[in-house]
């Protein structure tokens, strides 16, 4: 580590120098004294779990509005040795920083060329433009195609540059995003934010080749990924972040995949601790056989899983490998096939209503999309499923039914108190709640169903540390006090290890193995990175 520090301090020319970067959101420190420096043509990997601070760091680098509206950041950024204050994405672009987005910023109806050249079109004069000005200059399609071709060739893409984007496979879209950044003539630094998450292995290999190629041309690359072997394969230097701190900065030659895995996961003091009950004697409450789920981006390709009565089972794994598909598939949200038995009776797949009626409940990872009625009140959100599935909280008179306001209000107040939902009252629309409180409403809704088994997906995604702790404690309490079986899916290994009895790791749509929370960081890191599985 010492060597890298020295180099940072040396007078060599760096494309980017970040020094002492820190960031606080209203008293929540999310980044602490991060420093890094990249030379032209260097590939710098950044590794870290979800929530380690990678996104915030990138937001700072890109001058995103969210940084400046919350009081800016600490530390300095130098581009080409010149101190720069990056206040907007446009400015970042002008400074030569490019970014390959995780969600594609491509216009689907446009051809590849048009997307690559969006708002940077090459024009030529025509008779009208002489008086009517710049904007009526004709597009020089041939020149644009040529540029696009050049960028595509850099990436070894032999697809036609006039093909329309919308019909292309996901992998191609990723490459087009890269091609667009490459086409920018002043590009000095290119950020890849988990580019391989949506790619297949062969595509990923090509991408890595392309990255080396780009780096050879003198462009610096910041490479953010989970896949450790990719880091090892292409990066010159590697930074590991954890909980907003810089853990280590190393050159590739001085580390290996095992060390990185350990440092990434880290042994930390867990917030929730409890003794793990012995479940070996318990009966199986849910058994899943050969489950296949057609969930875009998270497809499950044949999962076998047994859940024991009264346990907390964790499902971990990297994004895009299908860990989310398991709960969504069982709950009937996406087309699925396979055999699922719950307490000895088969579960009808693809029918959410009957699944809920059998006593399962689900807290979705897509809180705003699937989990909530954003314009409706907290109390309605809490009792909605119970009304529909169990006819609770309604007064029935023959064919007529009415919401039972008193019961609803009482239950909502209880839930607000129990789960510490911070709100102005049970009638506040959920849209105006913070992420953590929205999550608590989702959990409250699932609890209102009094389920025997609760699926919870990414319960702590996008919520602050205080709320995280509370959510996790609630799950433990439910498990302990009511004997509720909980299946928690999460990208954050630490939280899985803090409350789960067993943790199933999903890679490539299958269970790679089931680990104990006490197993070593290396085991977790490697299994998640797809480097080993329990069988092999």
């Amino acid at each position, binding site marked *: 580590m010492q060597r890298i520090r020295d180099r940072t301090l040396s007078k060599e020319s760096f494309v980017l120098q970040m020094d002492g970067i820190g960031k606080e959101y209203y008293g929540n420190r999310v980044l602490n004294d991060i420093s890094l420096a990249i030379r032209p043509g260097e590939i710098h990997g950044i590794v870290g779990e979800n929530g380690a601070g990678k996104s915030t760091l990138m937001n700072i680098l890109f001058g995103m509005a969210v940084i400046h509206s919350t009081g800016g950041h600490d530390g300095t950024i130098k581009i080409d040795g010149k101190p720069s204050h990056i206040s907007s994405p446009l400015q970042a672009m002008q400074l030569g920083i490019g970014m390959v987005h995780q969600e594609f910023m491509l*216009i689907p109806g446009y051809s590849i060329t048009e997307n690559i050249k*969006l708002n940077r079109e090459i*024009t030529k004069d025509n008779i009208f433009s002489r008086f009517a000005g710049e904007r009526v200059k004709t597009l020089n399609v041939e020149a644009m195609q040529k540029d696009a071709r050049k960028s595509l060739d850099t990436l070894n893409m032999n697809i036609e540059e006039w093909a329309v984007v919308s*019909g292309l496979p*996901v992998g191609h879209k990723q490459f087009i995003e890269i091609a667009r950044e490459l086409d920018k003539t002043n590009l000095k630094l290119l950020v890849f934010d988990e580019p391989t998450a949506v*790619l297949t292995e062969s*595509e990923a290999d090509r991408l890595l080749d392309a990255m080396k190629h780009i780096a050879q041309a003198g462009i610096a690359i910041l490479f953010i990924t989970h896949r450790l072997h990719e880091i090892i394969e292409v990066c010159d230097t590697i930074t590991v972040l954890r909980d907003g701190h810089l853990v280590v900065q190393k050159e590739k030659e001085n580390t290996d995949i095992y060390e990185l895995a350990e440092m990434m996961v880290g042994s930390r003091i867990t917030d929730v601790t409890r003794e793990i009950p012995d479940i070996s004697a318990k009966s199986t409450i849910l058994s899943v056989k050969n489950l296949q789920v057609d969930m875009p981006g998270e497809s499950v390709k044949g999962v076998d899983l047994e859940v024991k009565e009264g346990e907390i089972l964790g499902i971990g794994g990297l994004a895009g490998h299908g860990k989310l598909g398991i709960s969504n598939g069982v709950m009937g949200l996406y087309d699925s096939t396979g055999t699922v038995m719950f307490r000895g009776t088969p579960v009808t797949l693809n029918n959410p209503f009957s699944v809920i009626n059998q006593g399962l409940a689900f807290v979705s990872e897509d809180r705003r999309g699937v989990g909530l009625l954003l314009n409706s009140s907290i109390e309605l959100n809490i009792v909605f499923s119970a009304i529909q599935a169990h006819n609770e909280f309604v007064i029935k008179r023959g064919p007529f039914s009415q919401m039972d306001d008193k019961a609803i209000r009482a239950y909502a107040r209880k839930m607000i108190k129990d789960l510490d939902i911070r709100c102005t009252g049970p009638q506040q629309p959920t849209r105006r709640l913070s992420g953590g409180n929205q999550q608590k409403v989702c959990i409250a809704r699932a609890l209102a169903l009094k389920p025997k088994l609760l699926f919870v997906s990414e319960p702590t995604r996008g919520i602050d540390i205080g709320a995280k702790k509370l959510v996790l404690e609630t799950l433990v309490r439910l498990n302990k006090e009511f004997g509720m079986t909980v299946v928690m899916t999460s990208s954050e290994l630490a939280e899985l290890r803090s409350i789960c009895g067993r943790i199933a790791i999903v890679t*490539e749509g299958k269970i790679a193995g089931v680990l104990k929370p006490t197993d070593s960081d290396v085991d977790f890191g490697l299994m998640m990175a*797809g*480097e080993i599985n329990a069988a092999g």
Partner: protein
Amino acid sequence: MNKKHNNEQKPALTAGIEEIKEIKHLTPGEKIKKFLVNNMVTILFVILCGIGLRLSGLSMAFYLNDIVNRIARNSFLILALIIPVMAGMGLNFAIVLGAMAGQAAIIFVTHWGFGGPFGILLCALLAAPGALFLGWMTGRLLNRARGKEMITSLILGFFANGVYQLIFLLMIGTIIPMQNEVLVLSSGIGLRTTIDLSDGLRYGLDDIIRTPFPLFVLMFSAVALVVLVVLLVRMRSRQLAVDAPKRKKLIMWSVFTLVLLGWSLMTHFSLSQINLVRVPTFTMLVIAVLCLFNIFIVKTKLGQDFRSVGQDQHIAQVSGINVDRTRIQAIMISTLLAAWGHIIFLQNLGAFSTYGSHEQVGMFASAAILIGGASVSKATVGHAILGAVLFHTLFIVSPLAGRNLMGDAQLGEYFRTFVAYGVIGVSLGLHAWRKLIQSRK
């Protein structure tokens, strides 16, 4: 380091390529099905128009005469809708205000007593600043009322109509001096309800050149043939593989043009009544120029910005395009074209109702372009022309078809409106349905 390759997993990349290949090698049955699904609206229309034509018992000469006139009248207005659609602003928004500007210009030019081609030119020049200003205002308003465009434009129409009435009913003769017995009410204040253009602007554009229909087709197909041959020759000299399907298409078109050429020659020297159909060729030329303009705009930076904004406002904004300004510019161009389109419309109509003829300009134009196959995000010159032909064919044949079918003039009229609106509804529905099917895939 045991790098694991999962062979069971089908790489998405190759899967995609296979799909692309599959499309190229469809069986004839699938091809037909795909063609039917993609063109169901058009097919429905062709069938309906065919049946209508049979039922109406109209002669070819009559139909041709009417459709040619209607196309000359309406195409420009329909073409004016393309740019806002391209910019993702939907239909029908600014066009009524543009029509008002055009109509105002006509009123003043008629008052000054100019007629003929010069009068039309004067109208066009006079209407331009007004239309651009109104377009600018409309664009700004619609930018402010984003997401409420529909109700806003509806009320904007009422509001503008109030202002229009204020100007031409109360201000004429009081604030705006105008002494003209023909135009102004005998009280000296306000315009009369009908304005007759027969002594001035009527056919000001149409009559510059008029040719019999077969001759028009002859000239048209001759020009088209020359263009096609030039294109073919150029393509041959380039010898690019990608041109192959294009060349096939071009050859097909050339053959078709030849057939057309032969037919027109034959008809021209026959005694067919079709020879009596006289095409307002100059107006058609103007429309052709506008078509070229629309095609030209698409190929400029401005056009590309329109399309980018129309496709995705967010991505356009992120890429540094000034979305608000682009939307305003789209509306301004459209309003200006609508003003000119309305001038062309009225000079062909010959007489118009001072307080009513601009009101519903937008509705028929937008219905026509939608039937032509345009959608909220995509509209081309082809859609506009095709829409004009289909929509107006339906309107020409349906009254008589309705009457002959129902055996009663008024039931025929009701039946006509039922079919006409129903068909518009159905075709919009089919577009939506097709989109739904496609999005499911």
